[in-house]
């Protein structure tokens, strides 16, 4: 029945398989080059400190910072835990709040008109200036740091998610309507998957902002946490400790960012436009 006239345009579709090898080579240099550069910078730093005998209060050498981290990892870890947990909590709440607001903005014209200008205005406030107020409102415990972290991290989630929800092809929406799809079906099977790449790009910005929020909170008031350790050590001119805390903070940040990236990879298995 189906004859040659139907035409199987097989050649039109498939990407050349030779591309993989090239990607492999590019992947290698994308690891070697940044690592190499970082190593060169660290080596230069070490040399500078050694040759000019810079006092450790001004600038400790990378080797001495590393030694301190290895020797006192227990203290650093004690302080890393609350910072990481509070950042994660702030991020998750910002994510929930951001997606909820985006749904509201997408589905309600009134909410959109009322919220959107205010959100933009909100974004213009230098939000860090408000951090002390959160301490007044919510006390010196975790809750004020988490709240502040949510406060500065939710905005990119709202903007990116809303853009994602509204980016859906009108033709697909019309098809759904023609198929008598419910609003819930449209949301779960079209809008949400369509918005996922946008949501993840919002999340990647939000996770770094969430950490910043917690650190600022710890700068102002805390009894533990890497932000607290940095302020405490700096006040005692213990630059080595302060630097070690910053290194650990970077590792925690990478870890949290890595979790978001991992979640994105998992989502991509199901929602990517490319075949795996």
């Amino acid at each position: 029945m189906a004859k040659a006239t139907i035409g199987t345009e097989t050649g039109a579709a498939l990407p050349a398989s030779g591309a993989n090898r090239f990607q492999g080579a590019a992947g290698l240099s994308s690891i070697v080059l940044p690592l190499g550069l970082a190593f060169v910078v660290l080596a230069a730093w070490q040399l500078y400190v050694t040759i000019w005998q810079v006092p450790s209060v001004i600038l400790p050498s990378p080797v001495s910072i590393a030694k301190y981290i290895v020797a006192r990892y227990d203290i650093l870890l004690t302080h890393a835990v609350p910072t990481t947990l509070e950042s994660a909590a702030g991020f998750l709440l910002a994510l929930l709040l951001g997606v909820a607001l985006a749904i509201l903005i997408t589905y309600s014209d009134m909410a959109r008109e009322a919220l959107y200008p205010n959100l933009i205005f909100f974004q213009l406030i230098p939000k860090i200036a408000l951090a002390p107020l959160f301490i007044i409102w919510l006390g010196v415990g975790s809750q004020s740091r988490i709240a502040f972290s949510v406060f500065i991290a939710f905005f990119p989630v709202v903007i990116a998610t809303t853009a994602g929800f509204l980016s859906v092809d009108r033709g697909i929406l019309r098809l759904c309507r023609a198929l008598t799809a419910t609003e819930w079906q449209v949301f779960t099977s079209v809008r949400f998957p369509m918005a996922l790449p946008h949501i993840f790009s919002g999340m990647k910005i939000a996770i770094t902002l969430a950490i910043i929020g917690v650190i600022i909170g710890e700068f102002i008031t805390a009894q533990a946490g890497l932000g607290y350790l940095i302020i405490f050590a700096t006040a005692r001119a213990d630059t080595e400790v302060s630097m070690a805390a910053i290194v650990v903070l970077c590792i925690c940040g990478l870890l949290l960012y890595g979790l978001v990236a991992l979640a994105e990879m998992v989502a991509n298995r199901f929602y990517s436009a490319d075949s795996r």
Partner: protein
Amino acid sequence: MLSLAPKAELTVDETPLVSATDVQKTYFTRQSPIHAVASASVDVARGEFVSLLGPSGCGKSTLLMMIAGLERPTAGTIMLAGEPVAAPRRDIGIIFQDATLLPWKSTLENVLFPIRILRLPVTQYIDRAHSLLKMVGLAGFEHKKPGELSGGMRQRVAICRALIHDPEILLMDEPFSALDAITRDQMNVALSEILETYRKTVIFVTHSIREAAFLSDRVVVMGGRPSTIILDMKMPFSRPRRFEIEETQEFAQVCRTLRLTIEAAHGHGEASARSEHAKANTAAGSVIE
């Protein structure tokens, strides 16, 4: 339920399945109302293939969207299987100019999309999805994603998707106008082959005279300002239809009649400038852009 009956008989039931009576559509804008369809009455019998033909902006797509229940007529009634159309219905399959596939879903999953939306048992339709894809020459492409398919292949997936839940009526809104001419010709033959197997009532919107004449049992020409139905013409060609009919004198004659009707309704501005060229091309079938 899932009839895969080979070659249904070609007789046409006389009671109209779709019946539009004095349908009118006016869009009220801030400036002045726009009369998309001034008045249109058309009946489509069960199993019939009817094309709505006309230049851009003649309201043919609007009429189709009203039949689909996606737009409400300003006046007049549209009956479908004896019931007035007030909203989209489950027994309609629809195909748009763009394939509108979900980019992250495989070909097979895209074909099964209506089954999931209509909450039908998916497992019962997988075989049907496979045989539809085979029919349109996409066997082996079940697990490719839309991004890996060509435009013509994507539109074939859309055809399978429209047929998966075995709707009574197939509504097609300029389905091949985004394709190149060669692919479009292939798709026309493919579509008539598909319909020999899966017999459906089809309403097909197009601005290609040749395409309308080749595919249809009847061609309804819309045009004029404000837009109405200006010609309702039975196509005299037998089925099954293959390319050869386009080379006949009869086919050229039909295309010429359709073209002159459209030109007459739209004055002599753009149309007459092209008519010399069009006459020369009549044998091959001219296309009103």
